[in-house]
């Protein structure tokens, strides 16, 4: 959508010159988790110990480990057990997710949109990893890419709150600019957080079909994004199959109707998993 055409008098400079100072740094715990996740010398026990220092991260890890997608026969009661169940990469992803939530999803006046971006990111991550599993792609990479695909959105909303006088008066214009710019701002943030370059490329291209170095991951995220949207609109399985089949990324990912029917059967499990993590009422002690 052309923002300038939609709102010719609206100055969108606030969204185009975000510099390093505007991009939030990761909390110490998350920085440490990222380092340890790629350090073969670090043990899972060390990682669990670091995670236990951040109550928000620890709580989210416990919720995810006990969610429908990951729970085993016995409930998980310790952080160490949870870490064992989820594995190093998932711990890293949850730490990044919580950091994103605590630092980014606080834009005053846009709390609903910011909160929605957080829950939507988690559901997109879950769909992306299921898609990657079926496409024999990189499952771990897909989860993190889905999780963070819209991370530019709350960041831009925060910038709008900080830089525009009375942002509530030009709400629609702000949301249009956010829709247009969030992909590149998200990619910038990934680079600042020293996350893998392929992730930054995926985020940059998740709304276009341009060939890029991340291969089909951008299309995987685009389809997962739409599946998450459809779940939020509470479409039933039949409608979800029809909508997914019609999505342009489905053909580019070579997904036939049979494949989509199989994929969509995961809907209830994934929605329940996302709900278990993001719904405080279900927080494990």
């Amino acid at each position, binding site marked *: 959508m052309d923002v300038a055409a939609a709102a010719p008098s609206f100055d969108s400079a606030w969204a185009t010159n975000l510099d390093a100072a505007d991009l939030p740094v990761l909390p110490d715990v998350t920085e440490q988790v990222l380092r340890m996740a*790629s*350090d*073969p010398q670090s043990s*899972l026990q060390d990682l669990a110990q670091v995670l236990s220092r951040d109550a928000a991260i620890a709580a989210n890890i416990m919720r995810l480990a006990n969610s429908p997608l990951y729970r085993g026969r016995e409930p998980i009661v310790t952080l160490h057990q949870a*870490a*064992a*169940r989820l*594995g*190093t*990469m998932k711990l890293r992803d949850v730490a990044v997710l919580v950091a994103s939530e605590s630092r980014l999803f606080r834009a005053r006046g846009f709390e609903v949109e910011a909160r929605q971006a957080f829950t939507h990111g988690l559901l997109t991550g879950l769909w992306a*990893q299921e898609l*990657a*599993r079926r496409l*024999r*792609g*990189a*499952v*771990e*990479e897909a989860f993190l890419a889905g999780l963070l695909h819209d991370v530019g959105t709350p960041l831009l909303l925060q910038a709008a709150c900080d830089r525009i006088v009375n942002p509530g008066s030009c709400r629609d214009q702000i949301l249009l600019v956010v829709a247009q710019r969030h992909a590149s701002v998200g990619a910038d943030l990934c680079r600042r957080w020293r996350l*893998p370059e*392929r992730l930054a490329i995926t985020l940059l291209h998740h709304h276009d079909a341009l060939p890029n170095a991340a291969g089909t991951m951008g299309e995987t995220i685009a389809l997962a994004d739409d599946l998450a949207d459809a779940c939020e609109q509470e479409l039933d399985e039949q409608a979800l199959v029809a909508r997914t*089949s019609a999505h342009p990324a*489905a*053909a580019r990912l*070579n*997904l*036939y*109707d*049979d494949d989509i029917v199989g994929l969509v059967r995961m809907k209830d499990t994934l929605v329940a998993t996302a709900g278990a993590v993001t719904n405080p009422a279900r927080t494990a002690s």
Partner: protein
Amino acid sequence: MSAANATNTANTIEVDVVVIGGGPAGMHAAIEASRHGRSVMLVDEEPDVGGACVRRGTIPSKTLRETAMSLDMVSKKSAGTVTLALPDDTTLASLLSRTREVVAAHERTWGRQLRDAHVDVVHGRVRFTAAGGPHAVLVQTVRRETIHVHADRIVIATGSRPRMPDTIHVDHESVLDSDSILSLPWLPKTLIVLGGGVIATEYASIFACLGVEVVCIDRAPRPLGFLDGEIVDAYLKAFSANGGRFIGGRTVVHVEHELGSVQVCLDDGSVFSADKVLCALGRTANVESLQLGTIGLGTDARGLLQVDDQFRTALPHILAVGDVIGPPSLASTAQGRRAGRVACGIETRGGTTSSRVPVGVYAVPEMAAVGLSEREAHEQGIATVVGRAAFKDTARGVIAASEAGFMKLVASADGQRVLGVQVVGEGAAELVHLGQLAMLGGLPPRVFVEEAFNFPTMAEAYRIAALDIAAQVLRTVRTGTDFSGMDDDECYAVPI
């Protein structure tokens, strides 16, 4: 439709031959039928032809192998002066960066060959229907269009995929198969490979060469049971030198996630754990989506399509070739060509298998064989003489730092016919073809002594092995000693 003579009635395309599957078998069947003047449609599920071997099997794993070998060879060829160690955070994608170009080049070549042969290529998924009958197929495209096709002959060449055992959950995240192993973001520190066949052996040795701590587990006592024992010994020695460990004669009871790693529990109570597990316990035919039951065609207990020596299924106008009929997988191309002729009403000879189909194992080190091994000849009651050549005795072998390799040239007891060749070492898969041609041409081993070959090349190994055969035959003639079963030292100890 570009296919010659194809007709398009109201809602149905009529062709002489429809080939289902665009791997090596399907592609060659389509080209061969077209060459005989038939209108041919080839339907493949993927947007480009090539089959699983191009996108998920042979080509990506061989590209990774080349990278691993190049890193290893830097040290060997510089006599240890230069050593390269991969950083701990090496991404697998960075080691596979050439794969996309290799696959694209391969797909371009195959696409061009099909266009040149006027084969109409359709991107879609095929199924039979009870209403359509056994001469009709329904093609659903990925863009939700439906095409009805009627054909006189149908060739099923849909290939295979990794088998998922009931007791092991392959989640493609912690427990992977050969289709998903190369999508791992990072090189694991430790890897357990389940299986002892070609795919398991290739990946186990490639990852070991890249510095991953690998344990390979199989229920057979040794890997690659179909290969000559000495060749397998040489492989196990090299695998062990790279830090790999083979555990044979064990069955996996279950696989579970524990403490951030995967644990594999075996029938003897032992437990092994690793960052990731590769499950390479065979392959299964891709036939489910065809809905063969609707036309009364079934598979055997192994899920394979049964065919006669002309590749005809129980419905004679439907042929099947390649992995859907089982081993030998490497015969797909030859099978495809023959099935293409059968589809044109031309009887062919040769059966579904051939002892002259070479086997190549792209492990580290590379292994290859064609024809009879010493043991197989013995089991068939054929007297042989075996010529040996160590790569360390060839100039090229030493230059290429491939001294550990060797060749066994199996000849008839009179030394007049080449019966088989087994090779281990760099270039083995190429080298075996010379022996294969000698077998096909009925040439005696002495041809490798009498004819000139480029020097220095590994062809010198044939000359050395042929001279060994000649010497043994000469001694047998002079002394009457049966040299079969003796090693070199014992042979040379016999006075002439």
